[in-house]
């Protein structure tokens, strides 16, 4: 490992070894990006948690590297977004090659006026390190325990008892809610014998990080290059991405018959890299040969046990929908669990976490399965279609759109869900917050997430609704705080004279072109899960 210095986190003897601990509201298993983000989200809402991890270092190898705009906006709310943006590599331009020819290139986010770009690349170990640093800001609310392995758990109806092993022995821990963030191979899921059904792909892929001083790209700008049937790797596909610290990620399709151990040998990998980067000197930093599948749990909520991230759903890596999907889970669950624990909502509100995120993961699975099927034709006929699409794409725009090297993660819409009410404004109900610049280098996205909020845009007065904070955008008021847009985007992106009800996760719960307090109150109740059998809502 050339660049990143892995410092083990300190293990402390947990109190449960010497005396029985009081029941904790929340215990999270897994201190990866999802478990850590979950703990921070809850802490920001005043909910304490214990986070258990069987290991004591951050992710070994870069693993998840592509962080989408929506994820960064959620991380902004959690307090690590700016640090990630500063360190990460921002890329916008993707180039697609067939053989040695460039078929086309695309710009991911041609629209300006957003705090965060469409994507950054940042190694998972940095993300975990930043999240652990952020966890340290909540010493009274987050109890992070390394080398604490959960070996068993039992749901007792109103709480869960975990059996935990440490270097100093085993102890029992009681949790009001147990959140399984223990990844694709979730031991929690295994113990419960839950089916994890989906499509398994036979292709092997080789993933290599190389450290290289000279950029392999033709310009100084970081880009994403994808090849179908490159001259250096006949008949297969390849992907080249840039990470911070002059690390480049190379993905090579190896076909279904590859021998994983043989392919991961340095003498086999180095010639493949040389074929891509030529004579530029490089060092191998990390590599792995993998296969993948697309699968999900039937239910993400099992009474007091909640599944979040890869433990609930896995996808192929094409489209960067794994880690990015998991962070949206966290964003969706945090405020709901906090409301249930505070007694402000019934436990049934947690079922909407399943409804909304199961829908989201289904969308991710559909997109990543389509990409994988396009990239790995299973029959000669599929190969014929694929190759003819690539051929037409040199000249015809419609064919370019059919080329599928991964449909990159976009925020999931919760439209039609039980918590959303119908809206008649520019940004539809269920959609995630749309960013725009404010004066003094501030951003709308910093103001519209965190708690329920009623915001009015442009020429409108935001009415008082009991229990609801208000914000004015592009007007002034003596009654509630207002922000000044830096340009026309904030008002035009939401519609002049519109009022929006935002959920704590920044999704639009409802929008209004008139300030009818009864309508707004009804939408607020529904968004909090207080309306039984909501008319018109469905999941």
């Amino acid at each position, binding site marked *: 490992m050339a660049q990143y210095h892995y410092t083990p986190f300190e293990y402390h003897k947990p109190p449960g070894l010497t005396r029985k601990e009081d029941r904790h509201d929340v215990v999270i298993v897994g201190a990866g990006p999802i478990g850590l983000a979950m703990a921070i989200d809850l802490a920001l809402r005043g909910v304490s948690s214990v986070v258990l991890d069987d290991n004591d270092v951050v992710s070994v190898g870069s693993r998840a590297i592509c962080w989408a705009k929506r994820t960064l906006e959620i991380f902004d709310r959690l307090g690590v977004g700016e640090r990630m943006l500063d360190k990460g590599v921002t890329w916008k331009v993707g180039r697609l090659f067939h053989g040695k020819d460039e078929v086309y290139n695309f710009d991911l986010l041609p629209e300006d006026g957003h705090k965060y770009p469409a994507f950054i690349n940042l190694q998972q170990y940095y993300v975990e390190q930043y999240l652990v640093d952020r966890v340290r800001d909540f010493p009274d609310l987050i109890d992070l325990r390394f080398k604490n392995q959960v070996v068993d758990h039992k749901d007792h109806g109103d709480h869960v008892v975990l059996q935990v092993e440490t270097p100093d022995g085993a102890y029992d821990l009681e949790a009001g809610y147990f959140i399984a963030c223990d990844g694709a191979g979730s031991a929690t899921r295994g113990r419960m014998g839950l089916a994890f059904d989906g499509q398994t792909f036979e292709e092997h892929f080789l993933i290599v990080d190389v450290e290289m001083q000279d950029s392999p790209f033709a310009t100084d700008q970081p880009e994403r290059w994808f090849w179908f049937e490159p001259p250096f790797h006949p008949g297969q596909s390849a992907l080249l991405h840039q990470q911070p610290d002059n690390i480049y990620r190379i993905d090579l399709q190896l076909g279904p018959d590859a021998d994983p151990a043989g392919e991961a040998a340095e003498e086999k990998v180095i010639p493949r890299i040389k074929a891509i980067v030529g004579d530029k000197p490089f060092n191998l930093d990390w590599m792995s040969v993998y296969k993948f599948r697309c699968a999900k749990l039937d239910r993400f909520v099992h009474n007091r046990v909640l599944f979040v991230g890869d433990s609930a759903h896995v996808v192929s890596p094409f489209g960067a929908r794994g880690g990015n999907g998991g962070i949206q889970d966290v964003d969706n669950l945090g405020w709901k669990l906090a409301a249930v624990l505070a007694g402000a909502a019934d436990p049934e509100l947690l079922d909407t976490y399943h409804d909304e995120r199961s829908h989201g993961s289904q969308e991710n699975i559909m997109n990543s399965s389509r990409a994988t099927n396009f990239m790995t034709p299973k029959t000669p006929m599929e190969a014929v*279609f694929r190759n003819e699409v690539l051929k037409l794409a040199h000249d015809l725009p419609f064919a370019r759109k059919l080329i599928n090297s991964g449909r990159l993660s976009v925020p999931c819409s919760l439209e039609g869900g039980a918590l959303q009410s119908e809206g008649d404004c520019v940004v539809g109900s269920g959609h995630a917050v749309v960013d725009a610049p404010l004066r003094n280098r501030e951003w709308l996205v910093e103001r519209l997430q965190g708690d329920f909020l009623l915001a009015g845009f442009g020429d409108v007065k935001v009415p008082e609704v009991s229990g609801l904070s208000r914000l004015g955008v592009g007007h002034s008021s003596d009654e509630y705080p207002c922000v000044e847009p830096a340009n026309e985007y904030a008002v035009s992106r939401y519609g002049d004279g519109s009022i929006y009800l935002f959920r704590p996760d920044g999704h639009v719960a409802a929008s209004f072109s008139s300030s009818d307090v009864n309508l707004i109150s009804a939408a607020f109740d529904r968004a909090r899960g207080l309306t039984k059998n909501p008319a018109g809502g469905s999941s």
Partner: protein
Amino acid sequence: MNDKGAEKDGLGADGDAFYEALMAAHDGLDEIQGHALNARLVLLMANEIGDMTALAAILQTARKFDD
């Protein structure tokens, strides 16, 4: 290019869904059966388009990409 239809984005957001459905239509067919299915598809789509000028342009465009 004479074929204006080929320049348009007729599939829009449904491109991936159509491609998936097309591959699914071939599921379980051997290569000869697959070619026969493609032939039927071409004939059905031609009937649906029903405009000889447009069809002639499409034939020309498709042939132009031949190796």
